[in-house]
């Protein structure tokens, strides 16, 4: 049985099956990531339900505008990623490389903003483990808020970083002509990963920056 595409692996019968399997595999992986982050969302939920005032207080120390801008940037990056998938599917190689590069750029911008936020919190004495000096209302529970904040945004940032690496590899491969309308599965599944990273932030933003602001002690 002759393979018409060099990309067909021997364990699959045809390209269709291979693509289905790859996409399905990535979705399963993303389901595991939902539970991976989910453990921390569980911690957040428990502590928020217990210490709403402290969480409200703590939340006001986060910069709402920076948070909103970060959210917009990530959404922008999801848009460029989706356009990249479209370019791959239509065989527009240069556009694909362009969109992947834009996505990486937005991702980097997100990280820069994130790091500057972290830096500000450090300077204000709100970084547990390194510089935590807050002593006003309910310091223990406020510290708990920031423990969760750094743990979750840290894990998210590591996923963004890994995503940048993956997209960079994809961009290089695309530049070398590895993808076309008949085979662009790696672009598609990288896109799925990237959108997931955006999804996590879509929930992190309201939970940390928005919903507790007005509960104050």
């Amino acid at each position, binding site marked *: 049985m002759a393979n018409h595409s060099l990309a067909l692996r021997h*364990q699959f019968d045809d390209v269709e099956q291979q693509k289905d*399997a790859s996409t399905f595999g990535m979705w399963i992986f993303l389901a595991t990531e939902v*539970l991976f982050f989910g453990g921390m969302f569980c911690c957040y939920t428990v*502590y928020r339900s217990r210490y709403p005032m*402290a969480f409200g207080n703590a939340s006001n120390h986060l910069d709402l505008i920076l948070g909103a801008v970060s959210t917009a940037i990530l959404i922008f990056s999801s848009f460029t990623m989706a356009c990249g998938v479209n370019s791959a599917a239509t065989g527009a190689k240069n556009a694909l490389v362009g969109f992947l590069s834009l996505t990486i750029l937005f991702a980097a911008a997100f990280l820069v903003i994130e790091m500057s936020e972290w830096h500000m919190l450090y300077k204000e004495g709100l970084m547990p483990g390194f510089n935590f000096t807050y002593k006003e209302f309910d310091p223990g529970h406020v*510290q708990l808020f920031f423990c969760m904040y750094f*743990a979750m945004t840290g894990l998210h940032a590591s996923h963004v970083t890994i995503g940048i690496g993956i997209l960079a590899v994809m961009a290089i491969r695309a530049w070398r002509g590895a993808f076309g309308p008949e085979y662009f599965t790696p672009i598609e599944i990288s896109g799925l990963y990237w959108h997931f990273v955006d999804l996590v932030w879509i929930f992190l933003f309201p939970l940390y920056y928005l919903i507790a602001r007005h509960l104050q002690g």
Partner: protein
Amino acid sequence: MITATVETRDNYLTHEYGVKSWLLTKDHKRIALLYLASISFFFFLGGIFATIIRLELLTPPGDLVSAQTYNKLFSLHGIIMVFLFLIPSIPATLGNFFVPMMIGAKDLAFPKINLLSWYIYMAGGACVLYAMLEGGVDTGWTFYVPFSTSYANTYVILTGVGIFIAGFSSILTGLNFIVTIHRMRAPGLTWFRLPLFIWSMYATSLIQVLGTPVVAVTILLVAVERGFHLGIFDPALGGDPVLFQHLFWFYSHPAVYIMVLPGMGIISEVVSVYSRKKVFGYRFVAFSSVAIAVLGFLVWGHHMFVASQSVYASLVFSFLSFFVAVPSAIKVFNWTATLYKGSISYDTPMLYAFGFIGLFTIGGLTGTFLATLGFDVHVTDTYFVVAHFHYIMVGGTLMAYLGGMHYWWPKMTGRMYPEGWAKLSALVVFLGFNLTFFPQFILGYLGMPRRYWAYPEEFQVYHVLSTAGASVLAVGYLIPAAYFIWSLRYGKIAPDNPWNAPGLEWQTSSPPPPENFEITPVVTSEAYDYSILEEMKVG
């Protein structure tokens, strides 16, 4: 006994030679053997810890090792046996080898990820080993906070990182199996024609994929709290140690089903073949596997009845825990019904299956005792619990694993194991096991706490019995290790289908060719169709 002649047919073992052909293989069968070597190593390592524990417990005072050393011993025994042996054991060895073959596929969906899985497992194992050599951990395999985060002076982070890494191996294996079973079945092989081993592996994979990430992030949080002082579980900040337990047991309860479901899958195969009958109530057994996987996620709080979990939550978890026993019981009834009026042969795999059915039943029943709140309050954290889970893990899973190894050994290696020695070992294992662990039920009921290295005089007789049993059990495990290795060179050459079993894996050579099948099989019969074999009458 003449040494066997060299295999002339090309098979997956002779196809390529050299270390690189093994370490860079993408063949699921070779990867299965790589795993077999690694998990066997960890099994014997965990066994060494068990040996020292049982030696210490021969006498009431703590006189063999110090208290902290004893804590490290049972911690490492648990960590190695659970995370580095039991969880990967059947899925990564027999599952890796036979899932593609039983569905008529050439390999798993993602062979490179399969190999990566093994390397990740080795990396995790290496971390744990390194931590062990540096002094180990004394937190118990359960890593309860705040001891593990704030007070332990041992290598918690390193061990945690090792387990975290090994967890990803488990996730990737599960992911691979799910995609493979969904997407790569041979033509004609519908879901309800699948062997029940595949149903079990599928259910196991669901748990691996949905549960492991939660324990991964939990251990990560413990490491982060210890390393960066982000006090997420720190009571001084308002953190909740019981929250840690929720997150930990959300995985670790379903984990026990990761450990037992594959064993049940093996038993379904073995009981059928050695009674020459299809499994009674096939659909019930298939659905029970999935039911166990799902229900297993609803009961984790039964590990926390005395942990200051609320009474209402305890009631809910207790109630749900009774439910999860039902599908397991259905399986036991159906295996028994399969045996009824079957044409039974007492080959070694069948002996292990008998052992499993009896011992798993005892383990499972005592599980329902423990689910009963009133009873649990008395025996929690005693040897009753220790006996309960060893009946299931060792009397259940490990027996099934040995049964499966004997059943499929001819297929994997092209050699027969020596039947006389094998039957003897099965008997020794059974007797040794019961002598080791039955006294522990009594000990627990009488009040001996677990994880204690010294105890009152009146418990000594039971501990002596238990240690005696453990030495018999150890012999029972060493003998198969020896003859399996022996058989690789001196065992009788195995025919393609020594048990005259149905199932696609038996329709190809022993050992199989690299691509598993010369031509992709087309399936037209139901699972366990012995009538076809009667017609074919192939030896």
